[in-house]
């Protein structure tokens, strides 16, 4: 695909033309911003699959995928980027192979490992933005803390059964973080994963796609420090589908990671002084 100007090949202009003409998208400058962006998707499951499909299709330059899980047939009703023939493969490798077919202009890095105190900084610091598509509170707190300490915005999604939630965390280091919303972790016995509680495929898919929309808005500069307002959106699939926006608290000055006198630092995480599993209680820590 030879470039026809300093930015794109003819194939890319054709490929992205229909989104570039949407006024609110922001035309060629926004497409260039996507091309020059890198994002890390943690979890290539029910949320990660649709987010990866639409963000790679939209022309993000570089996408990293973290997931140490392999494809199981019980995933396929909702993790539609994987197929029957990829059962047993690492989810991140299965995702990479489909993305290569969908959009060869995207560079994909895979991390078939579990995100931990030891590796999170090295991985997250390489990307502009993190999508939290994971399945347990312990990993959500870890992603949050490391992203805050690395200065990265988080697009956070979650879901269970027929419901879902969406938020932007640590937006440009001024927005509230996960700990601002949830300073105390939930008790372990109140946490249900999709494997245990079940999930309607297109319901979690809808939340994953909505994360892709938010990611595009952040990367193209639609949200600014001036116009950003903290929010949490709630999707309900039943009785009638709705997606409601709640106005949320600002960054909390007493937050233990993003506040004015934080108790959590890079050192305390790397040295395992912060034990996420113990903090959250022992939930099945599979990243789905």
């Amino acid at each position: 695909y030879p470039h026809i100007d300093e930015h794109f090949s003819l194939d890319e202009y054709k490929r992205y033309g229909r989104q570039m003409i949407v006024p609110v998208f922001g035309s060629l400058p926004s497409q260039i911003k996507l091309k020059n962006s890198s994002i890390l998707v943690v979890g290539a499951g029910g949320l990660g699959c649709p987010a990866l499909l639409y963000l790679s299709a939209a022309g993000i330059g570089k996408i990293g995928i973290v997931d140490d899980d392999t494809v199981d047939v019980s995933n396929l009703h909702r993790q539609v980027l994987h197929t029957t023939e990829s059962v047993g493969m690492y989810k991140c490798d299965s995702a990479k192979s489909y993305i290569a077919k969908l959009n060869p202009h995207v560079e994909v890095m895979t991390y078939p490992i579990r995100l931990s105190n030891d590796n999170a900084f090295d991985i997250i610091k390489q990307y502009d933005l993190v999508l939290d598509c994971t399945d347990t509170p312990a990993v959500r707190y870890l992603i949050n803390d490391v992203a805050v300490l690395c200065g990265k915005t988080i697009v956070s999604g979650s879901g269970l059964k027929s419901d879902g939630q969406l938020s932007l965390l640590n937006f440009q280091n001024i927005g509230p973080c996960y700990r601002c919303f949830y300073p105390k972790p939930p008790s372990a016995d109140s946490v249900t994963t999709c494997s245990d509680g079940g999930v309607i495929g297109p319901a979690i898919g809808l939340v994953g796609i909505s994360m892709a929309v938010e990611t595009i808005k952040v990367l193209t500069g639609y949200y600014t420090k001036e116009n950003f307002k903290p929010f949490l959106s709630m999707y309900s699939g039943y009785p009638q589908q709705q997606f409601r926006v709640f106005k949320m608290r600002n960054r909390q000055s007493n937050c233990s990671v993003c506040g004015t006198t934080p108790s959590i630092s890079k050192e305390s995480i790397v040295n395992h002084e912060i034990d996420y599993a113990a903090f959250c209680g022992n939930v099945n820590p599979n990243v789905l």
Partner: protein
Amino acid sequence: MGFKVKVEFLGGLDVISGGVREHKLTIPLEEGEATVKDLIENITKTIIADPKDIPVFIEDDTVRPGILVLINDTDWELEGMEDYVLESGDVFTFTSTLHGG
């Protein structure tokens, strides 16, 4: 005496009220006298069907960590939390935090 507010349970929290998501609740006090603290007490007495479910909603005398409270679609943290004074027609939304992906 008494006035009405709406109470909603989202994110699966309707398990504590027999699967009913929306409730019209009559607060047996004068408008201006009742706070969210009274509302929560009222919910545990009148809406939660099974006393065994109270710990799903209440911990250490307040709403359990992991449950978001919205007053008219706004985080209760911005509205004074338990001290917010109820007005007739207010909508109180309680939602579990979801972790699945």
